[in-house]
């Protein structure tokens, strides 16, 4: 029973990380209809930036905050330099460019920081919270709390502010957004910035768990894709619920299905993607477009 509870809590922490990266994917997809294959590698670079700032003597928390802000700017720059110029190109062109970016960023990290493993300290103290005989690490609880806080902030941005409404309008019907005076490209740029910042958060949270190296996001991005697919890709709620579900399922299957274990766990993500597309292609929360003439 204790093991089950622990696996679920750990799963939720992993799931929170997948959720923030899945949210990043959902944001770029909603605003521009483009799946950013390089999202994971951008997150990896964000984590390296924290490591580099610390190597230069900066404490962890300020380094993490700077990295997230820089990542926002990098996401915006990516939109302006690659995504916007390609907005009228075919899907295949865009996919090719983003996969190229994936490889380029991966190599860049290897070039700058080599392929050897480095340790990035956790944002949270190495301690355990005890509730009777039940014990859970501060990091696990901390990850869940940080992602929950970010979700609340995003909710307020999108549901209560004028900027949030304009961003949703610009993503949903750009032509009409222009006609009410919304600067659509600026809104999409902010969307890509937020996506990169969310990705950075996932990278910074996951790096202490998997060690810092240029391929550290490979597993995470697959799980995030599974989460986004399960949730419905264009749905914010879906990305979060999908992320948490994938995290918990991954942990439970890895623990209780002996022949899967830690090595085959990644297959769980692929089965989830495949199953969702087969049974419910719009995902759990993906909005089936309602349109009447």
């Amino acid at each position, binding site marked *: 029973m204790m093991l089950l509870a622990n696996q679920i809590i750990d799963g939720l922490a992993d799931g929170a990380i997948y959720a923030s990266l899945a949210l990043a994917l959902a944001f770029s997809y909603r605003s521009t209809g483009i799946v950013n294959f390089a999202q994971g590698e951008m997150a990896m670079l964000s984590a390296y930036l924290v490591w580099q700032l610390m190597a230069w003597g900066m404490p962890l928390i300020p380094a993490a905050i700077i990295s997230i802000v820089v990542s926002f700017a990098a996401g915006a720059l990516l939109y302006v330099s690659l995504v916007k110029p390609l907005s009228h190109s075919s899907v295949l062109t865009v996919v090719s460019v983003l996969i190229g970016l994936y490889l380029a960023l991966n190599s860049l990290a290897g070039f700058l920081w080599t392929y050897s493993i480095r340790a990035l300290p956790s944002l949270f103290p190495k301690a355990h919270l005890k509730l009777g005989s039940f014990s859970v690490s501060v990091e696990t609880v901390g990850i869940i709390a940080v992602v929950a806080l970010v979700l609340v902030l995003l909710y307020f941005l999108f549901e209560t502010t004028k900027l949030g409404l*304009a961003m949703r309008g610009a993503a*949903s019907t750009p032509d*009409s957004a222009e*006609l*009410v005076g919304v600067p659509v490209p600026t809104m999409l740029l902010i969307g890509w910035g937020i996506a990169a910042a969310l990705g950075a958060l996932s990278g910074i949270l996951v790096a202490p768990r998997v060690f810092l190296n240029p391929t550290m996001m490979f597993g995470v991005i697959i799980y995030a894709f599974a989460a986004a697919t399960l949730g419905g890709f264009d749905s914010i709620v879906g990305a979060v619920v999908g992320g948490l579900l994938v995290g918990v399922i991954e942990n439970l299957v890895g623990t209780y299905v002996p022949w899967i274990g830690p090595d085959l766990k990644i297959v769980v993500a692929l089965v989830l993607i495949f199953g969702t597309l087969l049974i419910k292609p719009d995902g759990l929360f993906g*909005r089936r477009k*309602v349109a009447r003439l």
Partner: protein
Amino acid sequence: MSLLTIKGLHAGYGSRTVLHDIDLDIVEGQIHVVLGANGAGKTTLLRAVSGTIERSGTILFDGLRIDHLPVRKVVASGIAHVPQGRGTFSDLSVDENIRMGAYLRSGSDMRSDRERWLTFFPRLRERLSQQAGSLSGGEQQMLAIARALMLRPRLLLLDEPSLGLAPIILRGLFDTLAAIRQETAMTMLIVEQNANLALAVADQGVVLESGSVVLRDSAANLTGNDEVRRIYLGYE
């Protein structure tokens, strides 16, 4: 006096010019209707005014040139454009659609405006939290007009408000437009296939043919004009 003055306007899509040398004067406080067959350039005329297509020539709005301005600036100068097919934000709620219309406004009197327009469109009030994409065609048209009015425009451009609507809904829509004009004296430029309905609420009319103005007169005279009756009103 004239609110919108168009001189020597050419406009089109890429290399294809649709409008040729259009001259037009829209008098403040009046409703002007643009009639013409499919492909005559009616929609293009509205898009040229709001800047959603390439155009050349002179467009003066309240004495200022707007023919080189991007859409956002044209809208900010006080021209609201309800595009053909309504352009509802179908993912957003009805209320959010209305709030989108007030994007350029600073906010304090937004609520009273919203209340004011909702009295003209009571159906929308009942559906404020509903997703806009699930509204009927007539309701979406009302929503698009309400959204445009939230801008407090001095000139309202309406592109085929009757498109796809049942006759009974249509009647109500034009009655509402007439009521809005009655109360606000708002200037409107309406493109419409349903010449009967449009001429009934309009002060002035223009007939376009192959991208040129072939006839302009008061709405009353156009209604009595034999050729207009034959071609656009469907009787001899």
